C-alpha cells in the first residue's frame, strides 16, 4: 500500500480529472499482458519475462503516455512488440519446444475420450497451432481472439492498416484451419 502511494506520488500525472496511475495499470492489465505474451511466445517463462519487461518499459515511458488514449492499447502494443522481439531472439528454440508440446498434445489412442479430455485436447491442439503460425498472423489472431480487440483496435495496436489486419485475420484463420485439419 505504501509502495502504491509512493508510486502515485513519484509518477507523472495528470491531464485528466481522474488520471490512471501506473499501479492501476499493472493491477488491471497484468493478466492480459501476460496472456498476450503467453499466446504469442507459447512459453510461460518467456511470457513472464515479456510481461515484466513490458511493465518496466511502461514505467520508464509513463510520462510520455498520452492519457487521452486507452492505457490497455498502449500496454498491449508494448507487450506485443516485446513478445515479437523475444520470439525472434529465441525463435528456433521455442519452435522446437512447441513442436514437442504439440506432439504430446495429440490424441493418445489408448485413452478413453470423455468430453472434458476431448475439449482439453482440442484446446491444446489449437494453442499449439497458434504458436506455430507465422508471427505476422499470430499477433493479430491473439489480439482478436484472446484480447477480444476489434479490427480497428488491432490496427491501432499493431500500427498496421485496418484492411491489412482484416486480410491477415482471414489468412491466419485459414492457416489454422489447414494445420488443424492436417493434424486430425
Amino acid at each position, binding site marked *: 500500500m505504501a*509502495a502504491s502511494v509512493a*508510486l502515485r506520488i513519484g509518477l507523472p500525472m495528470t491531464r485528466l480529472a481522474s488520471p490512471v496511475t501506473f499501479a492501476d495499470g499493472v493491477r488491471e492489465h497484468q*493478466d492480459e499482458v501476460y*496472456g498476450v505474451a*503467453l499466446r504469442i511466445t507459447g512459453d510461460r517463462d518467456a511470457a*513472464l519475462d515479456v510481461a*515484466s519487461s513490458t511493465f*518496466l518499459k511502461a514505467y520508464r515511458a509513463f510520462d510520455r503516455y498520452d492519457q487521452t488514449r486507452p492505457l490497455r492499447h498502449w500496454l498491449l502494443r508494448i507487450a506485443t512488440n516485446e513478445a515479437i522481439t523475444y520470439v525472434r531472439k529465441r525463435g528456433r528454440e521455442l519452435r522446437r519446444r512447441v513442436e514437442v508440446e504439440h506432439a504430446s498434445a495429440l490424441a493418445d489412442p489408448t485413452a478413453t475420450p470423455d468430453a472434458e479430455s476431448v475439449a482439453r485436447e482440442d484446446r491444446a491442439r*489449437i494453442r499449439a497451432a*497458434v504458436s506455430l503460425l507465422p508471427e505476422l498472423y499470430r499477433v493479430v489472431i491473439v489480439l482478436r481472439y484472446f484480447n477480444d480487440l476489434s479490427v480497428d483496435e488491432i490496427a491501432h495496436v499493431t500500427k498496421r492498416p485496418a484492411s491489412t489486419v482484416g486480410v491477415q485475420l482471414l489468412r491466419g484463420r485459414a492457416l489454422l484451419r489447414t494445420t488443424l485439419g492436417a493434424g486430425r
Partner: protein
Amino acid sequence: MRNDRRDDDLFDEMRLRRALRLEAAELPPRLDIAAIAARARAERPAFAAASLASRVFAGVAAAGLAGLVVAALPVVAPAMASDLFTAAIETLTRVAVPASALLSLAEQPTIPIAALAALAVAIVHEYTLRREPVREVTS
C-alpha cells in the same frame, strides 16, 4: 455453400476464443509493482548514461561528417564546376544543331506567308461561327 462457410467461420471463432482463454492454472503470479519501480530506478543511471553516450556519439559523427564535407568542398568544387560547365556546353551544342535547321526553315519566305494566311483563315472562320447564333436569335 456460403452459409456453410459462415458456420465454419463462427465455429472457428468460438473455438479459438475458448482455446486461447487463460485458464485458472495458467494465471501468472502477481507482479510486484514496487519491484518494477525499484528496478527501473536502479537501471536508470545506466540507461541515462547509455542514452547520453549514444547522443554524444551521434553528435560527434554528424560534426565529423559536416567537417569532412566542408574540407572536401574547396578541393572538389572546381572540378565539379568544370564538369558541369562542360556538360552544359555539350548539351547546348547538341540542341543547337537541330534548332538551327528549324530556324533556317522558318526564315524561308513561304513559311511566314503561309503562317499569316492560316491565321487569317482561322480568324475569318471564328467570326463566321460567332455570327450564326446571333442570326438565329434575331430571326
